[in-house]
């Protein structure tokens, strides 16, 4: 019962985030220099479309009514039309989601798995030379500019030792179905996934290390040791289970940084996802797409934070009291 109330409350908190994001967008459009209708319709829109946009957004109406219309408009999922393709922005975005999801999902999964594994491993001996070295490397790792690291990977594995592809998601002359197709995509994924992992893997190493070391210092660990559980069970079954809870929460908070990394990575590797689309929209000054991307990305991050909170509540019986 309590849990259901918590879930409901937490879901309701999604509303103000959506509201703030849309209002922020609206204010920025109004503060920006230049004609609003041109921003919304595109600089070389034909007069008929321009008139339609003016009518739709109520640009001759008072400010608050404009805001209201804008909220309704965006709230109903209408993010406008792209300048270039004349397609609805939302459709354009949704079309690109799978490629980005593949890239972000793979690199996040690997980051969490590898980062937690290394972090747990060094948490057993906090203060050792190994611990200091790994912690140092982890900090250095999340200081790496992801786009530069991508370029260096290309330089190394495509230019110097040409063993991996650096462009796109598939080969032009590769197979279009079956295991060959999957293998082709996998080969194309290696470098971008490796580059994108630098954004988060260091964070997970450190997080897992601190978290596991904290849990190992708790009294209940002394209890399970006194009961006689072997050290491996203490670490993997008891400490790790409790230590993973903070890792779960950070997953949501990290997503903003990882999506940023994805935009830059996709640009470097010409990966046909959202990031690449945003980059092209910027080059073409396709404002509706950029605004749409901002809204979608913000809501994705908010949604991820909502989901991680709910997962946390499900995993930790102490939540929601």
């Amino acid at each position, binding site marked *: 019962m309590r849990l259901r109330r918590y879930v409901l409350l937490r879901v309701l908190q999604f509303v*103000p*985030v959506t509201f*703030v994001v849309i209002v*922020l967008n609206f204010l*920025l459009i109004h*503060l*920006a*220099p230049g004609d609003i209708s041109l921003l919304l319709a595109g600089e070389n829109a034909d007069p008929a479309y321009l008139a339609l946009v003016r009518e739709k957004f109520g640009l001759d109406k008072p400010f608050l009514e404009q805001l209201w219309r804008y909220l309704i408009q965006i709230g109903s999922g209408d993010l406008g039309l792209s300048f270039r393709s004349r397609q609805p922005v939302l459709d354009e975005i949704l079309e690109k989601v799978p490629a980005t999801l593949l890239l972000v999902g793979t690199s996040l999964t690997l980051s969490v798995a590898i980062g937690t594994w290394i972090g747990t491993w060094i948490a057993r*001996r*906090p*203060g050792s030379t190994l611990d200091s070295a790994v*912690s*140092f490397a982890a*900090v*250095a790792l999340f*200081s*790496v*500019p*992801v*786009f*530069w690291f991508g*370029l*260096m990977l*290309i*330089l190394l594995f495509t*230019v110097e030792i040409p063993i991996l592809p650096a462009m796109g998601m598939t080969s032009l002359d590769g197979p279009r179905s079956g295991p060959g197709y999957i293998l082709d995509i996998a080969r194309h994924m290696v470098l971008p996934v490796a580059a994108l992992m630098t954004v988060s893997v260091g964070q997970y190493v450190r997080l897992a290390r601190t978290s596991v070391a*904290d849990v190992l*210092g708790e*009294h*209940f660990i*002394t*209890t*399970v*040791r*006194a*009961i*006689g*559980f072997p050290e491996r069970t203490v670490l993997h079954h008891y400490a790790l*289970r*409790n230590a993973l809870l903070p890792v779960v929460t950070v997953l949501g*908070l990290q997503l*903003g*940084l990882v*999506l*940023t990394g994805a*935009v*830059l990575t996709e*640009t470097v590797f010409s990966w046909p996802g959202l990031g690449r689309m945003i*980059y092209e929209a*910027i*080059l073409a000054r396709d*404002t509706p797409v*950029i605004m749409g991307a*901002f809204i979608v990305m*913000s809501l994705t*991050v*908010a949604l991820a934070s909502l989901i991680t909170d709910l997962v946390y509540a499900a995993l930790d*019986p*102490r939540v929601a*009291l």
Partner: protein
Amino acid sequence: MRQVLRRPAIALSACVLAFALAVALAAPWLPLPDPTAMAASPYEPPGAQHLLGTDNFGRDILSRLVWGTRLALMVAIVSSLISSLLGIVLGSLSGYFGGWVDGIASRTFDVFLLIPTFFLVLLIVALFGSGIQYTMLAIALTTWPRSARIMRSQVLTLKSRVYVQAALSAGASHSRVLARHIVPNGLAPIVTDGTILMGLAILTEAGLSFLGLGDQNATSWGRMIFEGQRHLRLAPWMSIFPGLALLILVAALNLLGDGLNQALNPQLQRQSLRAKRHEPVDRVHAPQAAVPILDVRDLRMEYRLEAATIRAVDGVSFSLSAGGSLGIVGESGCGKSSMGAALLQVMAPNAAITGGDVAFAGRPMLADGRPVRIDGVEAIRAIRWTRLSTIFQSAINALNPVMNVQQQLIEAYLLHRPEAGRAAALARIGDLFDVIGIPRRRMASYPHELSGGMRQRVMIALSLLHEPELVIADEPTTALDVLIQDQILGEIDALRRRLGLALILITHDMGIVAESCERVAVMYAGEIVELAPTERIFERPGHPYTQALIASLPTVSGPRRVLSALPGEPFVPAGDIVGCRFAPRCRMAADICRSTVPPRVKTGEGHEVLCHFAEAAR
């Protein structure tokens, strides 16, 4: 400050930052070509003429790198300064005034924290044009909730401090109290986070420039990589060097923030203190007949702290017969709980057993301070929980918070009886719960869902799971109210008699031992200062410390008297110890007590006292 600089990571990153700052400030006077001059031949590799080569327009890369440092540092400083200022103001107002102001403000922080910086910056730059000032402003606008949240929690803790309350009651205005007393004291973590923020700002600007959205007129590392990307095969040095510069500067900022955070946070430091422990020693097991269940000889254990090494258990000897009960009494910090941990061989990472022998039912567990191994397995493993178990002090911490109690007990049962199966485990736990007086329907509860008394009962049930021969109860009732305390002690005592198990009861309360133990050991500063049968110790306490402990007990029946509390601070056993440890607080102390270590005097059957005047007291 000197302490902080001694950490290598901090010193190193401080040097890097100082160098970057010097280079940035000195850029106009350095003997370098104009960073925008297209003077040299293009694509020249690194060499004597151009240390880091030239780019596609024939511009000197080293010079551009140096001028890029200026931009990177400006972005870092300006945006983190605006962000921190905004955060400090809004965070401290929210924390200081609390109530609905705080409610609204902290919700706002949460909402803004969810907006991804980079995408907002992209939007702003796309709408307003690519000026460096917009970039910095946008970074500040999306990052300020970080400092606001930190400041808010700082203010929440600081505003209840005595000096703040004193200033307020002296009539100081809110703004004055905030500006003079609260904000300056709460700034340290903001500064720490500020360095990390600076790194984030630099990377954001670089990423933006890499997408071609940077300030067209500025020399930015990100823009250099953006330009280098197209010539990656022909002139890789165009992208390699600015990227390295970015990596080094941002890593220095992150390492500095991280190092400061650790230096300011003593808890993180303590984690890394470890005591060196002895290697196990191999023995062959030779069974013996009719021996005490536990025999402890000259047990020693130390804690390694930053300043000193504390000898928490310093030469303790006693023995306990099967089915017997021993109370170990002393003030907190006297080493009684450490001794319990040493007997179980489960200690904090910064603790180590340094000497002594322990035998359990004739089997050596510890020989000369080293854990004993029999047939390659540590001897203590063979008896943990099946023959020797423990009841820990506060069950809320001693039980796993995210596992229900039934599951915890099942796992402990199956660990030592893997063949029994879940059903048998459940049946055993149900029986135990009946004995201990926990309703069976509470079996699937989580520790936090149970009352303090119930939790302690669960802990007792856990300790009795495998019908051990010896239970070490470490302050089993300290966290409970007096009524429950009596109930639980009574239950422990009844169980002990019925199951015939031996008990070591560790407590600070003489009254508790009087009721439930046959013998009493009084501990002070790591030593047993008096050991005697319970009746005798209450009748004829031999040590002045024991006398003081007994005198501090209230009696309901006896004659009315003033309860005496013991003055002075407990002795800390570290370094060279001269004379008697209790002498500074002892009402009977003479010169000999301050110069000579007291002898262990046998004053009667099973009664020994560590005092120069043990005979006199008799």
